[in-house]
Each structure stands twice: as C-alpha cells, then as structure tokens.
C-alpha cells in the first residue's frame, strides 16, 4: 500500500474541496482497502466520506432516498426496504458476509471493482488496471467472467448483487460533482460497457461523489432474488437473477429482470421484458426469453456453462413467480 494522505471532512463541501485535487473517496473501505493492499489501486489521498451524514434512508416522493453511506446491513434491515423492495433486501443479504455488510455502503457497493483474478494480480496484464497492457483473462482461466457486453479488451464481470436488484428496480443514482452540481443518472445509464476502455466503468467524472440512490415508488407484485454460487454462502454469484413480476388475469402485466454473473454490468435486456409482457406464462415463453437474453452472448472457453445455467434459472424463477 502506497503512503497516502487521509482526510475526514465532515461536510459535503469539505469533501468536494478535497476531491478537486484528484483524491479518492473511501466509504466502507471493504473494496478499496483490499485493492490498495495489493496496489491494484494506489490513491495519493483518501477522503473518508463516512461522516458526511449520508447514512440516512428518507422518503423521496413515493419512493425512498438511500444515502450513499447507508450500510448494506442497515439497508437490508430497513423495514421499508423489506416490505416494499424485498428483491433489494434479498440481494443484499445474499452478498458477502455479516461483517462485510456492516461496513459495505450503498455507494461503495455500486462502485466495487471486478473480481477478475487477473485484475487483482499486478504481475499480469490487465486493461482495466493498467489501460493498454492487454487482458490476461483472455486465453487464461475464465470462470467468474462475463458472456454479455464483453469486448476483446475486457471480459470482466460486475460482481455486485445489490446493483442487480437495483437495476431491476429502476433506481437513479444521485451524484454531486466536485463543483457541487447535483445530477441524477438512471442506473441503466450509469455503467459503461468495457469497449476499448475497460478502466472507465461508469459515467462518473473525476471527483464526482455519489450522494445517494433513489428508489422509485414501490412496484408491488412479486419479487425475488436468486443467486447461484460455488458454496452456500460468502461467495460471489456464478449467476443471479433479480425479478419483479406483476400478474393480471393470469397474464404477465409487468416484469423486470436483471442478471448478475453474466454481464460486464448488471444486465437487463428490454427485449426480454417486452417479449414477456402481456403474455400467458408458459415454459416455451420463458425458454424463448432465454434465447433473446443470450442471443449476443459470447461463450468463451470456461464460460459455456453460464448459458445453460442462466436459462434454467430464468425459466425456474419465472415459473415460480407466475404461478
């Protein structure tokens, strides 16, 4: 870990002031410190944002505003989340461990980096870690990598569970720039595809601080988050699905499906939802949804199983939720 300067402002403007000089925010630290120890990330200055008062969940229109430093534990335990956004509570509880969730924050979780093992290994080339150096995963060992949204420069997954649920919930990310200007970005537009710049993961500019996430009015209907992993707990997803479904007269009237473990960002495909909306649920329909979801998938060696797994998961989840 490179020496750095540590600052702990207690106001937003203090944070912005520090951020102007290219500093890095630290919230829970569970991802950043991990990477700093390996010098995968090596900021000169850390701005601790844990005491800016961004740790509240408050009503926002018909929805909720979740502060950026609300911990994953507190968010999952919040009664409003449990009642109105169960898919989010479930996704949070499926992630990491009790200890980590107590530190991990909403903003930090959205911005956590990939778990591609080559990204973590400074002895190997990685375009995400050092742009232009190449991608060691390609031609190497791939398992927790993406099959959708990849490029020849990077096939890294976004590892978050929480972000998958949030994508299904159509959340908006609230950001304050270093100059104090406030903006809101739909999560759908927040993450970039790797293209030829896999190091640029989001639409945030340098110094942008996530101040919170806005949950729209409760969707109602049935909600579920299902995660498949290599062990029963404390493991990242092989594949996961967040689903919200409303039925009317035995037809699917409204559906949102987001996937983890397959995409370079939490994955959602409007074509899949369009296919399903208004239809009577049948296995054939769900299988067709799987075809659409996976039509552009690139199944590189080692990742073929994701195709089977995500289709089965999709069918089983929708079957259960439309019964």
């Amino acid at each position: 870990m490179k020496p750095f300067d540590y600052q702990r402002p207690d106001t937003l403007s203090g944070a912005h002031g520090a951020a102007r000089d290219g500093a890095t925010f630290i919230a829970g630290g569970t991802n950043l410190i991990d990477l700093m120890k390996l010098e995968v990330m090596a900021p000169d200055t850390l701005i601790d944002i844990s005491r800016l008062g961004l740790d509240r969940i408050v009503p926002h229109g018909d929805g909720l505003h979740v502060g950026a430093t609300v911990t994953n534990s507190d968010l999952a335990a919040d009664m409003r989340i449990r009642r109105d956004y169960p898919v989010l509570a479930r996704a949070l509880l499926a992630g990491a461990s009790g200890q980590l969730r107590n530190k991990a924050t909403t903003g930090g979780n959205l911005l956590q980096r990939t778990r591609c093992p080559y990204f973590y290994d400074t002895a190997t080339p990685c375009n995400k870690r050092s742009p232009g150096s190449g991608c060691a995963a390609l031609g190497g060992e791939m398992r927790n990598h993406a099959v959708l949204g990849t490029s020849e420069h990077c096939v890294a997954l976004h590892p978050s569970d929480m972000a998958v649920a949030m994508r299904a919930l159509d959340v908006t990310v609230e950001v304050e720039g270093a100059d104090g200007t406030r903006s809101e970005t739909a999560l759908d537009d927040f993450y970039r595809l790797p293209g030829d710049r896999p190091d640029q993961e989001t639409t945030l500019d340098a110094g942008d601080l996530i101040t919170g996430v806005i949950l729209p009015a409760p969707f109602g209907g049935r909600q579920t988050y299902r995660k498949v992993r290599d062990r029963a707990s404390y493991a990242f997803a092989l594949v996961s699905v967040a689903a919200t479904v409303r039925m009317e007269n035995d037809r699917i009237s409204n559906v949102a499906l987001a996937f983890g473990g397959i995409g370079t960002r939490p994955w959602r495909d409007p074509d899949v939802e369009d296919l399903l909306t208004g239809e009577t649920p049948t296995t054939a329909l769900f299988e067709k949804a799987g075809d659409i979801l996976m039509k552009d998938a690139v199944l590189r060696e080692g990742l073929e199983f994701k195709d089977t797994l995500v289709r089965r998961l999709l069918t089983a989840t929708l079957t259960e939720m439309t019964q």
Partner: protein
Amino acid sequence: MKTSFTVNGSPFSIDLDPRVTLLDALRDHLNLTGSKKGCDHGQCGACTVLVDGRRINACLSLAVMHDGDEITTVEGLSEDGRSPLQSAFVRHDGMQCGYCTPGQLCSATAVFREIAEGWPSHVSETLDGPYALTREELAERMSGNICRCSCYPGINAAILETAEEDAGYAEAAE
C-alpha cells in the same frame, strides 16, 4: 496521524501511519493479539471485532477511520475469559487450532444482537421477522467466519446452547 478510540473499555490515543489497519493497530500497536489475521482481505473472518457493537473485519478498515469508536475484541468479551459463550466453546470443542476462534466469538456475540434486533438473513423464510436462532439461521449468519479445522458443529452447538441457556444474553449484548 493521531487517532483515539476505546478498546475494551480503555481509551487509547496513538499516532499511526494512516496505512495501519484497525487489525494491525490492535495486534501490533496495542499488543492485543487475540484478534487474528488469516487473510488480511476480508475473506476469512479471523479478524472480526465489534465496533460500536457491530461486527466488522478489522483487516479491511483503517485504524484512522475509527477515531472515537468503541471497539471490543476477544480480550474484552469477558473479564476472565470464561463467559457463558467462551465456556460453551470449550465444552463443545468449538475449536481445534484456535486461530479462527476469537473471530467466531466476536461474530457470535454480534449475531445475538442482530437476532434480537430482528435482522433477517439470506435463509430467512420471510423478511418480516422476528427470527429464532435456528441451526440454519446460525450457520448462514456465521458463514463469514471460516474455520479450516472445521469445528462448525462444535461452534454451532456452543452458540445455540448459550443462546438458549441465557435468554438474557442477547439483550445483555446490546
């Protein structure tokens, strides 16, 4: 950088390189080596301590971020090292090499409180709560503490017995 916090009820004020993790501060600067370092990356739970009553991985937290916090380590769980939970661990052989044990004990202490507060878990049937500390609930909630000696049966038996015998334990932990 000067940092002050309370550990096991005693105030400390130390001057630290900001790179020092809470875990290393405890182990190397305060000579409280009960908290263990198994991975230094949040992947094992051996470093679990309580900060303001909540369990965290001390290895993934910088000491300077804990200014003003109240920290409890295994050394602070009881005066004599023989709390009902600690005794139950010995009785049920909830340890072999003992390296994960302090983390297990701190984690379990926090689990009592999380249950008392009605926090759900991944295996909870519903999100409504409250939750009973069943074996399944416990196993999930303790999964952030890896035991390579694989003392899970003894660990779980000790925690469940303590929860049962000392119904007041959970409240006391608050």
